[in-house]
């Protein structure tokens, strides 16, 4: 009886071991019939033998060998389950990816474009080099910096937008919009007119070119142009003369300033001013005496009556 129990114990344990090993092997495609395929990459980013091979996201095989064949070429051999090879064609593309963001490396096989024969033993797949995480991050950093600047600017703009009412008014004003519309319509009209005018103008210019009309004659007449030239020369000489005259003027004014000549003396002589002042004073005293004399005259008898009468008339007049 004990021997039976022992037999059961040993058998169960061995069976469990074999089952476990089989399950592990089946996950690694060891017991499936497989075909061997390869692909070459510049950089495999830490791919190891035993990593998964996926076809459109399902596990179809494992990597059996990773080895260098040149200074920048790594060859990867992998086994693919024979059952799925009928769906993978010779033009499929192999790329290196990761399981999740930080998971194990793996090879992704994606179908190629167009028709092609199914994959066979020993085929080499076209490859896409993996995204280098650090490169991607570097670019992302740059983009982020730019984005920050842009958003800062945008923030400033929106702040100004909020702070200033007039812009809102501008945006919400319907009459303005109507006006603008009108203006645009008028602009359009003006534009049309302008086009007509331009047409006329161009015709006129063409005429002028050909020497038609008075302006044309004027512009195309060479004799006239020599005359014009001469006139300009004359004007030039006149302005020269003017220059000489103004030079003289400047000389005179500087002399005046310095007190040269009679007028200058008159303007700069202080003794003369003093005399003039004195004379004015004498005149003032003279007028004062005269006013006194006149007052005395008012009160002398022949004129007294007249002044009194005038005083009365003034009072009644008020």
């Amino acid at each position, binding site marked *: 009886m004990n021997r039976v129990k*022992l037999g059961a*114990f040993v058998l169960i344990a*061995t069976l469990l071991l074999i089952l*476990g090993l089989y399950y592990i*092997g089946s996950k690694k495609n060891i017991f499936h019939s497989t075909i061997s395929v390869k692909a070459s990459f510049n950089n495999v980013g830490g791919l190891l033998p*035993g990593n998964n091979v996926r076809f459109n996201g399902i596990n179809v095989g494992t990597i059996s060998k990773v080895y260098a064949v040149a200074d920048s070429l790594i060859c990867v051999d992998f086994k693919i389950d024979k059952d799925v090879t009928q769906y993978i064609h010779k033009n499929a593309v192999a790329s290196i990816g990761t399981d999740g963001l930080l998971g194990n490396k793996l090879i992704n096989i994606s179908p190629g474009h167009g028709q092609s024969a199914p994959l066979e033993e020993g085929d080499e797949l076209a490859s896409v080099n993996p995204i280098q995480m650090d490169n991607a991050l570097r670019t992302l950093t740059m983009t982020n910096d730019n984005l920050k600047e842009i958003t800062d600017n945008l923030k400033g703009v929106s702040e100004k937008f909020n702070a200033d009412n007039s812009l809102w008014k501008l945006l919400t004003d319907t009459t303005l919009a109507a006006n603008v519309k009108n203006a645009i319509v008028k602009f359009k009209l003006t534009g049309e007119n302008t086009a007509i005018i331009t047409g006329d103008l161009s015709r006129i210019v063409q005429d002028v070119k050909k020497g038609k009309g008075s302006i044309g004659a004027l512009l195309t007449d060479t004799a006239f142009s020599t005359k014009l030239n001469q006139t300009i020369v004359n004007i030039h000489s006149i302005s020269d003369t003017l220059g000489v005259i103004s030079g003289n003027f400047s000389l005179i004014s500087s002399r005046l300033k310095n007190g040269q000549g009679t007028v200058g003396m008159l303007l700069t002589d202080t003794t003369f001013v003093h005399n003039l002042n004195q004379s004015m004073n004498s005149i003032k005293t003279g007028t004062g005496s005269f006013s006194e004399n006149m007052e005395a005259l008012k009160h002398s008898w022949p004129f007294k009556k007249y002044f009194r009468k005038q005083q009365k008339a003034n009072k009644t007049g008020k």
Partner: protein
Amino acid sequence: MKSGFLYNLLTETADIYRFALRFFKEGFRPRYEFGELIRQCYYIGNKTLGLVGITGFIMGLVITIQSHPSMEAFGAESWLPSVVSVSLVREIVPVITALICAGKIGSGIGAELGSMKVTEQIDAMEVSGTNPFKYLVVTRVFATMLMIPLLVILSDTIGLYGAYLGVNMKQVVSFHLFTNQVFEKLTYADVMPSIIKSFFFGFAIGIIGCFKGYNTTNGTQGVGRAANSAVVAATFVVFLIDLMAAQIADILHIT
């Protein structure tokens, strides 16, 4: 010097080495004691399975429950089955099983052979024409060598079932998904070293138990001492072998 710690250690090591050599010399030479081997296998295998199974189950459950908070902190709850299964299969179950067996089987063998030695049954066996070393030591060491790997496999299975229950305490994972996740991450490099090292665990437990029992002195007092020192030495050697196995696996890149 003759009674120093170092002297004792060196002579003990030399004696165990000589004992092991004798085991290999006599073990592979006929005649084979199959009846006794099977009887010993039954006692060591079947009679220990219950204890080892419960321990394995509890370890699977406990490791899962303990790992859950830290895995949750990383948002990696879905990785729990894979992580727990790898740590169970690689390390925890073989070592725990070996320690339980060192306690149960090592002390049992030590006490059994020790009492036979002090009651002079071993000498009597020799007189009666039976090779006592073949009959007692070789069968027991082979039995531990064969049974402990099997116990480890069974305990792995029970422990993984415990882990399945532990995972389902906090989240819902179907049994199918659980086994898929477990065998997705387990590799031969996880399973084979653990099976191979449990052979060595079994050998160490058997040979030390037998050595201590076979060389018992000082009467019935010595029987207790033999059983005790068999457990202590076997436990220590199990950890030594575990350390060596881990380093060898690392050197050979079986990770």
